[in-house]
């Protein structure tokens, strides 16, 4: 066992932390308030190689391991969770399936610009009636010559309004149920594609979440990702990795809230002494940090398993479940430690509190993670 980051991993962490402190933290409150997509930051992340961290160099990526990606993502999310999810979706949910299931032509044409951060990707699985039950795809794909024609609606699509490239799941053969689902690469400038609504959200307000419509969108046959019928498998294995990313995002949010709360507890005086000297506050701090450390270790374990190419569905689910619920716990305690100030937008914990909640929901709810974990235990 070795619980230390390697030197290259530590270098990446520091690079991410420095960048986040310099270019992300200063605007985090403003872009949250204004619901403004941080285009300039995303461009810089691309230049740093952070938008395709695990992609091979020949396809424009930074060719780093998952552990490096996870620690970088935590640092970015610590500064701004919205920026974290933009980065996570492009890396985990778009670049990864393209590199894993795409052919060389697709990797050169589609993956490379995404990995270099010149283009932005989105992952279109959720639908109005297909959330946790992702196999219930109502979007239809019909073959027409050397094209596929897509029709349907996609919901809650992160990056949806800013993306250049989409991975879209659609039902091509309803008889086969989940084995009839295909995955497609869709350019957002294709005729018939439209962003029909942008969600007004509690948190992650600088990241756009869109409802997308596909009205007779013609996709060239060359843009089928993987084999026909492989869509559901692609979606599920992508989410296995995506979960590690969301765990890292949750860790970043929680660490930021924890840091703010500790700093506050040390300087805030009541009854003539810093509140950090009261046992009630010390207990909160101990529990926050203990759970945070445990969550980080579970997340790193999942990332490490992915790096050594061992099946990691359960471990990723454990990381995601535990880290996101820990984030919920930590932000709640942080607000409590700050008291009225924690409820005010003057202090960042108010934003952390709102941002944390989604981690327990997207890329598989806590309930879905428990199903994955239980299946592993009962096998």
């Amino acid at each position, binding site marked *: 066992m070795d619980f230390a980051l390697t030197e290259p991993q530590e270098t990446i962490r520091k690079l991410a932390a420095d960048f986040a402190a310099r270019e992300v933290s200063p605007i985090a409150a403003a872009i949250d308030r204004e619901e403004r997509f941080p285009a300039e930051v995303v461009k810089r992340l691309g230049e740093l190689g952070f938008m395709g961290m695990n992609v091979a160099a020949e396809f424009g990526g930074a060719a780093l391991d998952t552990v490096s990606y996870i620690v970088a993502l935590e640092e970015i999310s610590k500064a701004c969770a919205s920026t974290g999810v933009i980065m996570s979706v492009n890396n985990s949910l778009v670049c990864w399936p393209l590199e894993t299931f795409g052919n060389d032509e697709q990797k050169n044409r589609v993956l490379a610009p995404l990995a270099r951060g010149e283009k932005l990707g989105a992952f279109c699985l959720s639908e109005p009636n297909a959330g946790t039950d992702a196999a219930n795809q109502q979007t239809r794909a019909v073959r027409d010559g050397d094209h596929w024609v897509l029709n349907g609606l996609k919901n809650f699509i992160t990056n949806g309004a800013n993306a250049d490239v989409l991975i879209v799941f659609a039902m091509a053969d309803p008889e086969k149920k989940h084995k009839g689902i295909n995955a497609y690469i869709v350019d957002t400038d294709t005729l018939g594609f439209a962003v029909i609504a942008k969600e007004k959200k509690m948190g992650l307000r600088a990241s756009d979440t869109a409802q997308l419509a596909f009205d007779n969108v013609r996709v060239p046959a060359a843009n089928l990702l993987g084999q026909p019928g492989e869509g559901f498998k692609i979606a599920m294995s992508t989410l296995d990795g995506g979960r590690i990313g969301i765990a890292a995002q949750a860790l970043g949010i929680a660490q930021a809230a924890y840091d703010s709360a500790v700093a506050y507890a040390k300087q805030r005086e009541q009854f003539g002494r810093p509140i950090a000297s009261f046992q009630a506050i010390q207990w909160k701090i101990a529990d926050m940090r203990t759970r945070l450390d445990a969550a980080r270790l579970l997340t790193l374990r999942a990332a490490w398993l992915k790096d050594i190419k061992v099946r990691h569905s359960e471990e990723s689910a454990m990381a995601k479940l535990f880290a996101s619920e820990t984030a919920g716990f930590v932000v709640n305690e942080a607000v409590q430690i700050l008291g009225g100030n924690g409820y005010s937008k003057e202090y960042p914990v108010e934003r952390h509190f709102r941002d944390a909640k989604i981690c327990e929901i997207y890329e598989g709810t806590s309930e879905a993670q428990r*199903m994955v974990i239980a299946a592993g235990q009962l096998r």
Partner: protein
Amino acid sequence: MDFDFSETQLMMRDMVRDFARREVAPLAREMDAQGEIPEALVAKLRESGFFALAFPEEFGGLAVDTISYALVVEELSRASAGVAIMVTVHNSVGSYPLAMFGSPEIKRRFLPRMAAGEIAAFCVTEAGAGSDAAALTSTARRDGDVWILEGSKLYVTNGARAAFFVVLARTPGTSGHRDIHAFVVERGSPGLTVAKKEDKMGLRASDTVALDLADVRVPADQLIGREGDGFRIAMAALDAGRIGVAFQALGIGYACLDEAVRYAKVREQFGRPLADQPVIQNMLADMATDLDAGRMLGFRAAWLKDRGRPCSKEAAMAKLFATEAAGRAADTALQIHGGYGYVKEYAVERYYRDVRITRIYEGTSEIQRLVIARRLLAES
């Protein structure tokens, strides 16, 4: 980052798992009922080196690394938490003070005998000194070449069969933590008597006693460290013991998970196995996740300790989280068993009782939180 065990660590774990299944598990229920570990099992543990685990090689020990040690404790505890605590107290708080703070002379005299299986016990707790260990009132008065100990000690694990007792006592008339001294006292020393064996809720196989110290004369060369080092020695010993207790708890916790999974698969209600019910699946998922989280914290602390790096905070986190996770796991496992979990025919009834003490001894959860918070506040 590397979460793999080494070959040696895996070998050790497999050997102990095999030993525990063959020699310990079949006796666990009877040991609990009888409130005793049979001498024959103690002898087998001795022959197999369980009492030499943490001792330096030069004194006949196996000097296993802390991760191996953790795996050993977990596997033993999976079979019997009572046996596990006998082994861990001996290897940590019972002997660590001598190994870490003893003079070369003390080490030469006592450690080889301990490593050979003469069992050690640790005596700090008193009626009025639990979490507040510095409130102890047993006294040690220097008289020429001997120290004279007076007082009484409580909740001494291994007390009934220990050959050696590490005893904490203070200069008469003092208070606070400065004037406390640590001694190693041999069984059979006149005046040292077992006053009573506690009748406990759990860990019934392991013996816990109250000790009387009446005019016990201890040779001056059996002082551990220097005069006044006692409190520091006790705290360091407890620090070292925490990783062991964390893995003791995890062993019970994983045994609960095993039993819960086994039961959920065979027990049918409403025409299908409990395991098919989402509510039961949720319970199993939370148990597994919680225990794995505790385990990661435990291995991190062990890894730091093996590198000689400070690990008080991390050991406290491991102990706090692992013991509480194991407590939740025992509660959930019992719940899944329903009424059967409440009867002694099912092992979870014992696990439920056994696990409770892990949140209390070698530092309560409340003390762990204070240790953690103070370190965090000092370092930030």
